[in-house]
Each structure stands twice: as C-alpha cells, then as structure tokens.
C-alpha cells in the first residue's frame, strides 16, 4: 500500500462513487462492499438511524452477487479509478462453502483485486456474517476454507462484541489469515418512543462513528499484544489523531468509514495529519507508529 489508508467496507460502495469528491492518491487501497455468490436484497427500510456520535445501520449486505460484481463493478472501477489502486474485496456467505466459492472466483479476477477481507462479523444478517464470527472453532474453519480456495492475501474482519478477542485472533492465525481487521460495527438498537417501535426495519443494527472509536482502540491494542499478524484498524476515524491512536495501539493500516459520509475528503485530511505528526515526533515513516506506545 502506498499509504496506510483504505476505506471501510460498506461505506465506499464499489469504489467509484466518491471519485470526484476525494483525491484517491491518499488511499493505499479501496475496500469495497460485501459480496456473496448470489445477489442479495438486504433489509427493509428504514435502514439507518442517526444517533449522537454516530450512526446505527442495518443495510443487510445488499449486493449484486459475484457474477455482476465481476462483470460490471470491477470493470467500472478500472475505468474510473484504474488498475493501480489495489482493491480489497469484502466477502460473506451463508455457508462455509459459499465463502470459499466467492474467494475462488476472486482469485481469478486479477488486478486491481489485491486482497480479500472475510466478513464474519456483520450484525445485520441472520444467515451469514456473525454466525461464523462468534465461535472460534467455526471461525477457524471459515478461514481455512477460504485459505484453501485462494492465494490472495486474507484479512479477517472480526466482531467487537466478544468477551476476549484473543481466541478469535488465534482462530485467524490457525486458519491461515494474513491479517485481521478490527472492528466491525457494534450491535445496537434505536427506538422511536412516540410510535413505540424500533426505528430500523431489522429492529437492531450496528453502531459506527465517533462513539465506537475507544472500543476499537482497546480491541486493536488487545489483538496487537496477542499476535504478529498485521492489524487493519477502523472505528470512528474522523481525524488524523484517531488514526494515529489506532496505530499506536497496534494497527498497521487504517480504514476510514462512517466519517466519509459527513466529509468525503476525510481520508485526505487524515493522511495529511499523519504525515505532520510523524514529522513533529521524528518518525521517518508511518510504519514506525505501529504499537509505538510508550508505556
């Protein structure tokens, strides 16, 4: 990656939507929205609720399926963004076989597809997502199956709502993952008190935004102490300081997510701030920030 920044899956579409609003040279990779084998309609409306310090969403992984992704979205990315900016493709499935099948299809895609992010932690779908991410033994099976299906680098995106992250990190190591991503959204709920009904059609959703940032810092910190796998840190990155905090906690790279909705140019500001911080503190490269906690 030419910079330590990417986009958080689900906040950046298929990579082309913000092409005129953000200078992509600040990104080291683009992470696109979750893909499974077949098209998936997602949840009913409403799908989001704004809350102080963040956003609760229950999109439900609406997506075109791997065929349309490869036939339309990937070539469109090449047309708009080019082949030089690596794409990380987030995948999910309703079964372990489906995870492996999607990964196999992506293996043959070629540039710009550069890595796979395995989503085992979406709180908004019943069939897939967190079913596979809340049991370390099942998680290891998913990672092994995907590992066997592709030679592409594997990043496993973990759920934050577990009592101890370490067994899940071990499962990623055992399964042959190349990196882990922390954190996905935190299960949450919003109620319309006048109507006495849940705001979201799915009843519950996942919280993202500023409010989740300290949770992400803590989990990245815990994971970093337990593994040598690189960590892609995310969760409430709005300013350079948020990214630097995650890096000091142990992240090697950072994803900008919900902040993009408020300011599409967030990643540009974050990168500029990281460079300024490194200069001010005598770091020759952002790589030196990883785990550089003094105490």
């Amino acid at each position: 990656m030419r910079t330590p920044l990417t986009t958080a899956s689900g906040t950046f579409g298929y990579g082309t939507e913000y092409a005129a609003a953000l200078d992509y040279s600040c990104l080291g990779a683009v992470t696109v929205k979750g893909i499974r084998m077949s098209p998936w309609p997602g949840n009913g409306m409403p799908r989001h609720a704004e809350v102080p310090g963040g956003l609760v969403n229950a999109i439900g992984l609406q997506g075109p399926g791997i065929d349309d992704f490869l036939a339309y979205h990937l070539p469109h990315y090449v047309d708009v963004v080019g082949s030089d900016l690596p794409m990380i493709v987030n995948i999910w499935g309703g079964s372990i076989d489906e995870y492996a099948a999607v990964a196999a299809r992506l293996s043959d895609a070629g540039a710009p597809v550069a890595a796979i992010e395995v989503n085992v932690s979406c709180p908004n779908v019943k069939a897939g997502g967190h079913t596979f991410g809340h049991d370390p033994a099942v998680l290891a099976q998913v990672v092994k199956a995907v590992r066997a299906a592709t030679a592409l680098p594997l990043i496993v995106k973990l759920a934050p709502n577990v009592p101890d992250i370490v067994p899940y990190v071990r499962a990623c190591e055992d399964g042959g993952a190349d990196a882990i991503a922390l954190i996905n959204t935190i299960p949450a709920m919003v109620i319309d008190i006048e109507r006495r009904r849940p705001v979201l059609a799915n009843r519950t959703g996942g919280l993202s935004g500023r409010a989740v940032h300290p949770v992400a810092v803590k989990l990245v910190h815990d994971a970093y102490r337990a593994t040598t796998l690189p960590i892609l840190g995310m969760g409430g990155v709005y300013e350079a300081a948020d990214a630097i905090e995650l890096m000091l906690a142990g992240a090697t790279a950072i994803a900008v997510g919900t902040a993009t909705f408020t300011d599409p140019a967030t990643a540009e500001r974050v990168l500029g701030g990281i460079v300024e911080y490194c200069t001010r503190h005598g770091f020759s490269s952002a790589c030196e920030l990883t785990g550089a906690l003094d105490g």
Partner: protein
Amino acid sequence: MGAFLENTRIVRHADAGPGYRTLVLEAPRLSAALSPGQFVHVRVPGLEASALRRPFSVFFAGEGRVELLYKVVGRGTAALATAAEGDTVDVLGPLGHGFPETCRGTPLLVGGGYGVAPLHFLAARMVQSSPAAHPILFLGGRTRDDLLALDRFAALGVEVRLATNDGSAGSKGFVTDPLDDALIEHRSKGMPFELFTCGPDGLLKAVAQRAVGTGMPGWISMDRHMVCGVGACFACIQRVKGPDGRPFNARCCVNGPVFAANDIIWDS
C-alpha cells in the same frame, strides 16, 4: 458528472413563510452542474462534527447561485436555519437522477408543500429552453401558508392552480382535484401531457396512479432520508421494477430521486 465538494457562501437566508426558509448560496461550480430534480447534500454548519449531511432538492441553480427552499422539520434543518449570510457551507453535488427536461405535450407539475422546490427549477428550465412548453403548476398544502414560491412562478409566467385542505387559498380539498379537472380536459381534447411531482408520499402515489391509469409518462421525485447521497451506502432504498421487469432495491440517491411512475413498486 460525479459529485464534488464545493465550499459555498451564503448570500441570502430568509423566511419563505411560517417555518420555511430560502437559502441562496454562491456556488459557481454547482450552479452550472445541477439539473432539475437533482439534489445536493449539505454539511450543516454548527452541527456536531460527525452529524450526517442533509439532502435538499434544488429550488433554482444558475447565474452562479444555488437556491434551496426548505421546511424546518428536525435537528438538521433547525441548525441550518440559524446559519447567517456570509457563512460558508460545504455542499456535495450534483446528486441523483433528475427530471427529464423535454416533455411531449403539456408539462403538468404537481407539488405538495415544499415539494414545490424542484418543480420551480424544472419550470424555469422548461420556460427557458422551450417557450412553447407552457407548464402548469398544481400546488397543494394544508393552508395558504404552505403554498410557497408563488411569486417565482408568476415571474416565470407559469399558470398556477391551487388547493388547500382548509380552503384558505384555491379550491378546498386536495391538489389532485384541480389536477383531475385538467386531466379530463386534456384527455377529452386528445392533448398529450406528462406529470412531474414532488411532495408527500400520499401525493406521489396519487399522481403515479394517475400517470399509470392514463398511460401517460409520470416522473416521481421520492423524498428519503439519505446517508451518503452518492450510492455508496445503500440506506435509501425504493423498490422498483428494473430494466428486466424484475423488482429490485434501487437507491433513491443515484437511481432516483426521480423515478418513472411505471417503475415504482409502492408498499402495500
């Protein structure tokens, strides 16, 4: 054209009726790029730094300015309403798929409340590009206070037919009453028309039913809460018939906000 950010400046911000405001932004790039029915996504000055943007349809764009006409309905618009002339506003646009600007027959524009905003931009563009178009505006509201921008339509020379629920202006009842009179007149004379509408969902559905029922084109501008505005997040879904006739969850922000009446699948 892809959506871009423009740092705009407020040149006027004034009341447009009880609870309604007109915001005029100096926005040279956006004013040249926007088409009727498209919208902009506004980062509201003064809201917390992580608040989502708020989408607004465009009341007028041209001559270096972008005008918004909005109702104060919640936290975002309440904060926006306090922004002062001279303040800067970060605006993302142009966004969405707007109205067709050419029309076969009489353009019948049907607005409810502040849904009149994009119809004004459409009427202005139609009058400018084809003086023979003669659009007619049907505008409804609960009371006369909800009938906005009448002076602007008068300045364009657009014929206006009004309806209010309480009868304080125009005919008493729904705006579909004078609309139905016009549809009967057009059909009896064999005159073609197209329907263009923006307003509350009930009105949109009523106008869409009339378009489908008469077999004439209808263009429906859907109002949905939005998150990204650019098609990235899939939060603003409307069920529609796709090109292959099969239903799919379209994104209002990029596939709309204007949809063909024939394509919309309404919630039962």
